[in-house]
């Protein structure tokens, strides 16, 4: 199967520009949340990356941190990149919003906020719940989420 991940030399170029960038694997990089927005701007607007679509945005609740995962696709260059941001602060997790760059972030960030409880700073207004009711307490995809009811 052909590989479509971002070429390693291009990743190396990025590394020079963004010191916090960390290569986790083929086509997977991690970045500090301070540098997320400039990195994404670079990835979107630099024609040698041209990541024009934010295809997926999600978050994972690890025991020691939250990890926000972005999957980028470049339609003209047909390559992929997964960008991760670790959020150590488990009490008030927040990452910069990407709504200014990609429209698809608007609903996906709302979804992540709703289900995982990660705040997105710079989100137009404030991310509101999207799938759950406004009155819902807690964020169900967190590992410490407790719920009542169920079958047995």
């Amino acid at each position, binding site marked *: *199967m*052909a590989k*479509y991940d971002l070429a390693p030399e291009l990743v190396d170029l990025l590394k020079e520009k963004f010191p916090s960038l960390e290569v986790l694997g083929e086509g997977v990089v991690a970045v500090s949340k301070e540098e997320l927005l400039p990195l994404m701007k670079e990835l979107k607007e630099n024609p040698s990356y041209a990541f*024009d*679509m*934010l*295809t*997926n945005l*999600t978050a*994972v*609740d690890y025991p020691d941190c939250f990890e926000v*995962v972005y*999957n980028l696709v470049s*339609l003209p260059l*047909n390559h992929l990149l*997964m960008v991760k941001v670790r959020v150590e602060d488990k009490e008030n997790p927040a990452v910069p919003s990407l709504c200014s760059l*990609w*429209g*698809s972030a*608007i*609903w*996906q960030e709302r*979804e992540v906020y709703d*289900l995982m409880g990660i705040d997105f700073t710079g989100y137009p207004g404030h991310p509101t*719940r*999207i*799938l*759950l*009711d406004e009155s819902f307490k807690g964020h*169900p*995809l967190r590992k410490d*989420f407790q719920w009542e009811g169920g079958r047995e």
Partner: protein
Amino acid sequence: MRTQTYILNMGPQHPSTHGVFRIILELDGEVVVKAKAVPGYLHRGIEKLAELRTYPQVIPYTDRMDYLASMLMNWGYVAAVEKLMGIEVPERAEYIRVIVGELSRIASHLVAVGTYSVDIGGFTGFLYCFRDRERVLDLLEMVSGSRMTFSYFRIGGVADDLPPEFFPTLDKFLHDLPSLCDEYDGLITGNEIFQARTKFVGIIPPDVAVNYGLTGPNLRASGVLYDLRKVRPYSVYDRFDFEVPLGKNGDCFDRFAIRIKEIRQSARIIRQAVDGLPEGPIMAKVPRVIKPPKGEAYAEIESSKGVFGCYVVSDGSTQPYRVHFRRPSFINLGYLEKLLEGWKIADVIAILGSLDIVLGEVDC
């Protein structure tokens, strides 16, 4: 004269919101000033449920996302787990997957075409599409035993081989399909009233479509060639000869017409897959208890609604640590609020219908 806008609550029980979707419309007469989409009425927390189940046990839950194309939902999840475990799927299984996946795509597009016809007001086209969809469902029922929620894919292959009576029935269906498509084209697509209702309505420019992450027929209607089967062929799609229909204007009509064209292309793919169906096993050598190594994988496939992605995180146990589904219907809806502004109530239905959402998938 003092005029006043008013709020019209459309849904969640409105007949044309394709399920339990709600749009709060602020209207000036019949013209939409502002729209607010409220999904979530069908949220079942499938991602959370998946965390409490073993890897194979998630498969039936994926069926219940896009229940109109369950095979493709199965495929998306299974592809991610296979990627995580590094499983090489046997060739015959890949071909079978292509056959049932494309059949599922046809079924899904038939629903999209039919319900769109009824959204615009023509009820007969709806019944023709559903009449023919039954034949697809019969075929898939032969294969999997169920009509809608198949749970047919397994990690490393498929559940069962194609039964012998499947092939003549499929052959007959594929033979009839072009004339059936002509019928839809004659009854719906070619109708001047239908064209007046849909042409240049709800235009999505290509750059906006990409920016908002729209995929599938909605993106291709804007003229952007982005079909994973073509641009990043997965499975065995690189072996088949087919075209990706593209639209010109990105309006409702293009989004609709592209689906009928895709049905024809899917039929081509199925024909080639059946002809080239190799012998061999239908399951890879997979351990009885599936325990992927610690790690993560993100795989995408082209579902009938767009790019269906699945992100699986494993902590080395038998249960996934985290599963996330990138549901195309959900992301396609993200642009709806802006798209509706300035159109009439009737166009709201036309635009929403042309996006072809399935609420099971939107709300997950």
